[in-house]
């Protein structure tokens, strides 16, 4: 229990450390827009990782299986109650993540009698037009960030920044989903590689002082992806804007996922 401000800070720090420690081995998730919608790309062991939430919403995350499941079900419950009581048009990513999930995760994280949720989740929404596509990165403490084109969820912020820097170099919103998946898989591999030690103390920003992540070379990325694909299954979920059905989600069958090489 917290009796002084110092104790309170300590307890928050302990919880942060506990979550960071438990997240460490998680397989990253990459979200990318493409010409016809949005893709979520990851590699998994036996359990599914990319899930349909609602007609225009999907979710993938890393962390403890039970917390991922709890967030998934809470998102589905909220979306369906809203969609039934009002209209499917009223179910938006902002309402699901910002209104339904974020405050509940925050309460759980701040409550000393609860184990904090071990999760970092990526939500994606396909809009009526490409300008309306959104990616939301939701953290274990309820904080979330909004992205327009691509977003990465990984165990550490450093990994996420490195992956985003790599994805940003060759991201192309007019590419087909196969190209987006190929980039997503390589970005996943960037997240799996250890941070590259640069010559000037890990900071390649030069005179400006801005920390630009140092990226591994392409050969190492290819090797890391090949190693990943040897042990794990690739999994890809798409939200296809022009699908004739109301539900835009499609889990791509394993044999349709483009393999590198």
């Amino acid at each position, binding site marked *: 229990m917290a009796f002084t401000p110092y104790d309170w800070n300590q307890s928050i720090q302990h919880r942060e450390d506990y979550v960071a420690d438990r997240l460490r081995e998680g397989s990253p998730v990459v979200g990318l827009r493409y010409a016809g919608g949005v893709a979520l790309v990851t590699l998994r062991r036996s359990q*599914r990782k990319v*899930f*349909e*939430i*609602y007609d225009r919403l999907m979710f993938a995350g890393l962390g403890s299986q039970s917390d991922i*499941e*709890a*967030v998934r*079900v*809470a998102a*589905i*419950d909220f979306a*369906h*109650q809203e*969609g*039934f009581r009002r209209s499917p048009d009223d179910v938006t990513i902002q309402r699901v993540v910002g209104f339904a999930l974020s*405050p*509940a*995760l925050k*309460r*759980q994280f701040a*409550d000393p009698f*609860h184990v904090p*949720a071990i999760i970092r989740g990526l939500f994606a929404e396909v809009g009526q037009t490409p300008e309306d596509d959104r990616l939301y990165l939701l953290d274990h403490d309820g904080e979330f960030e909004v992205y327009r084109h691509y977003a990465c969820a990984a165990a550490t912020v450093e990994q996420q920044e490195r992956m985003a820097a790599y994805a940003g170099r060759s991201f192309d919103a007019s590419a087909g989903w196969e190209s987006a998946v190929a980039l997503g898989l390589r970005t996943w591999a960037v997240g799996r590689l250890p941070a590259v030690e640069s010559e000037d103390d890990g900071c390649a920003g030069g005179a400006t002082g801005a920390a630009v992540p140092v990226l591994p070379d392409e050969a190492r990325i290819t090797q890391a992806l090949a190693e990943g694909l040897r042990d794990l299954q690739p999994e890809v979920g798409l939200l296809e804007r022009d699908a004739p*059905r*109301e*539900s835009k989600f499609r889990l791509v069958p394993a044999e349709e996922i483009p393999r590198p090489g």
Partner: protein
Amino acid sequence: MDAGMPAASGDFMLLLQRGAPPGASMPWCGADPRVGRLEPAGAAHGTTVLALKYRDGVVNVGDRRATAENLVLYDRADKILPLDDHTLIAISGSYARAMDAVRFLRHSFNYYRRSQLQEMSLEGKLNEVTRFLVGTVPDLLQGQGYVVPLISAFDVSADAGRVFFFDVAGARFETAEFGAAGSGSHRIRGAFDYIVKTKGPFHEMALHEVLREALVLLDIAAELDAATGGLQKVLPSVKTVTREGIREMEEAELAEVVGQLGAS
């Protein structure tokens, strides 16, 4: 999860009851606060819908008329609606109740698939339809309107189209070749049997062959039943369900088939 996050459940009805604001009740379950009130005169009714098997699945044809007593309320009502990728519902009876049914069933099937990570079985879906109909019985007894649906499904496991019809209380019956519901359907019931006995079973015919029979039957129903819209003013709605999913027939294609009927 924390308070405020509902626990895992695959039961959409329970979820709704649990999440509903205090005092609210779903119109089809439990005590209804509207007991004793009659359905307001002027509530819309849908009329004639047909479901016929064909070689690749099932084709549904419905007129577009919605009536309220002897008033033609609307002549562009769509009474053939997809519930999911392999299930169509064709509705007759109270339009308001039917739309409630469609909304409930769609959400129920989607909620089950998304939360349980597997498709609801066909038997499960049919039981959900029955559950809805059972819930409307108290309203039915008070004269507040009823729904009689037809369900057409492509049964992926059996690789065959299937047609089911229901009575107002929820009893379910499977048919071998065709089903029909609505006020116009009784007038043409014998004609279905005549076609099957003289021309052979529908499930062996091609789509356009079955569609021509269905359109003629609908035209006869419109001639004999004032509440059924015909073919000439507004084209009927036609949807098919096959292994590949649900398809709405293009207006140009349908207009051509209707045009050929007039010429013959």
